[in-house]
């Protein structure tokens, strides 16, 4: 009995060891070395003492928060309505399909749409509002980043809603709740796990977006990801890059702690 269970686990454990623990150790190890290869705590000192990195961290968290909020606001109703459509599986697949188109290409399409002579500006000038600078603004960055993340938010919420036992809804109805009450007291709490995994799937990657910051944000938006990319690819200060990486990983653990499963939502099941 025990043996088969461990057997399932072997390939996964190997993966965990080789591709998670080992790189993690490598990064942690590297974060304690400066450019010259001396052991040091200076990277962490730099991170916490220089205004640059703290501002950057604050900005990244702020942007990631906004991106997560936008995607959530758009995705929840979408998932909610999707579950109630006739060919729901098909529609869901069609939501994910756009992610198969290369990110860079989509970014270029957005550049075309948002640029001075682009579609949106043609429309604005047609309506008499006049051409506006859209590209390279915070707004355009937030819009495009949210666009990219939407499918990753819809999917878990959809799954959570889909799994919901219809009898709860019925019971709620029978007990005299109106549809808003049913939503607030039954549907939303039960879908909360989906929302949590959606937030996890969107928030942390948003902290470390890097290609879009240049292409759409024109480097007016700098996130932790931009800094990591810089340190790994340009400065080759892998120590500092790793330090920011370690901080991101800690942020992720904190995030998981906040949104993680508390006491296994069993309360509902046992009812």
């Amino acid at each position: 009995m025990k043996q088969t269970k461990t057997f399932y686990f072997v390939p996964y454990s190997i993966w965990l060891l080789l591709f998670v623990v080992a790189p993690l150790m490598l990064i942690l190890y590297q974060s304690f070395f400066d450019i010259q290869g001396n052991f040091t705590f200076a990277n962490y000192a730099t991170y916490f003492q220089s205004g640059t990195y703290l501002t950057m961290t604050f900005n990244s968290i702020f942007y990631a928060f906004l991106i997560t909020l936008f995607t959530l606001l758009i995705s929840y109703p979408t998932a909610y309505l999707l579950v109630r459509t006739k060919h729901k599986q098909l529609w869901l697949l069609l939501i994910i399909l756009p992610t198969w188109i290369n990110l860079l290409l989509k970014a270029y399409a957005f550049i075309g749409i948002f640029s001075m002579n682009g579609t949106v500006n043609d429309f604005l000038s047609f309506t008499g509002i006049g051409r506006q600078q859209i590209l390279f603004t915070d707004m355009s960055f937030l819009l495009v980043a949210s666009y990219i993340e939407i499918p990753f938010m819809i999917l878990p919420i959809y799954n959570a809603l889909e799994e919901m036992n219809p009898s709860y809804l019925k019971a709620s109805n029978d007990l005299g709740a109106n549809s808003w009450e049913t939503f607030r007291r039954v549907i939303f709490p039960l879908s909360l796990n989906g929302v949590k995994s959606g937030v996890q799937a969107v928030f942390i990657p948003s902290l470390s977006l890097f290609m879009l910051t240049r292409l759409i944000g024109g480097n007016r938006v700098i996130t932790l990801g931009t800094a990591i990319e810089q340190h790994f690819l340009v400065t080759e200060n892998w120590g500092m890059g790793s330090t920011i990486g370690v901080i991101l990983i800690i942020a992720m653990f904190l995030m998981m702690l906040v949104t993680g499963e508390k006491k296994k939502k069993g309360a509902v099941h046992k009812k």
Partner: protein
Amino acid sequence: MKRLVTLAAIILAACGVLYYSSNKLDQAQGITGENTLNLYNWGDYIDPELITKFEEETGYVVSYETFDSNEAMYTKISQGGTAYDLAVPSEYMIERMIEEDMLIELDHSKIEGMEHLDPDLLDMAFDPGNQYSMPYFWGTLGIVYNIKFIEEGSIEHWDDLWKPEFQDNLMLIDGAREVIGLSLNSLGYSVNSKNDAELAEAAEKLDTLTPNVKAVVADEIKMYMIQEESSIAVTFSGEVADMMWENEDLQYVIPPEGSNLWFDNFVIPKTAQNTEAAYAFISFMLDPENAAQNAEYVGYSTPNLSALDIMPAEITEDEQFYPSKDTMEHLEVYENLGQEYIGIYNDYFLKFKMHRN
């Protein structure tokens, strides 16, 4: 369960078909290993016709891989696991690769056509006597502007970028050396400055440029200038040549107070497996006719004097791309500043990018 197994089987079958066709395709292209030249170059930095011609003339098969930054190329080569026979890094990276003993010392007797190269562009500080590298293309850093929106001739110096009328209009190339360098130049300092006071002054001056900066981008500058998203930008001469083909209203200026002179040279990494093919390719590209064809395709400035003779005069006499001796004297090649100062340049650059007016 049955469904899962069936699906897995279908996927595996599809993989089989893909693997088979991909192999077939490789064979059709003749990529088998033995007679292959692994060329590691910037994206779209060679006339593909020349690769075909080279394959036909020599029987070697070229496997062409691309990189998008010197640092990415360096990482790939230094980590091993690859066997590039020929790469095309820029000068400061060549200096570093020489220092780190990553390059093969070139046997000049195996290279034909070195005599065609402009002696003024040989024997530079980053590689004395060209022991390790052969020039492929060269160019400058300067200001490109659109005469439809900005009076022709009104831009001459780096300081002109600070003019208030360019508010939210200027695009800068996303490079720490380039952007800090232009600020250093505008103050009359060297682009290779290792003087902390000078650097701090340059960084401070740069921050005052923020109101004018519309975006700090990379290769997209080309697209934006062609489409007139911006009317002024700082970028490399090669990029500008491409832009001018598409938009005739663009002008390029190399500020006389000084700027950067850059090189992209052929080098043979120590990990190379087919050095004979590498030498053959260098010689092939030094042939004036091939060099001229390539220069016309890529649009960058060629170091090959004999090629210049057979190229149209309107290209070779264009001072924007083949600047006068006087201007050339004020240009500086980037030196490898060492890790510490590269870090300082980058920190200032990061701060500049984060600076909000």
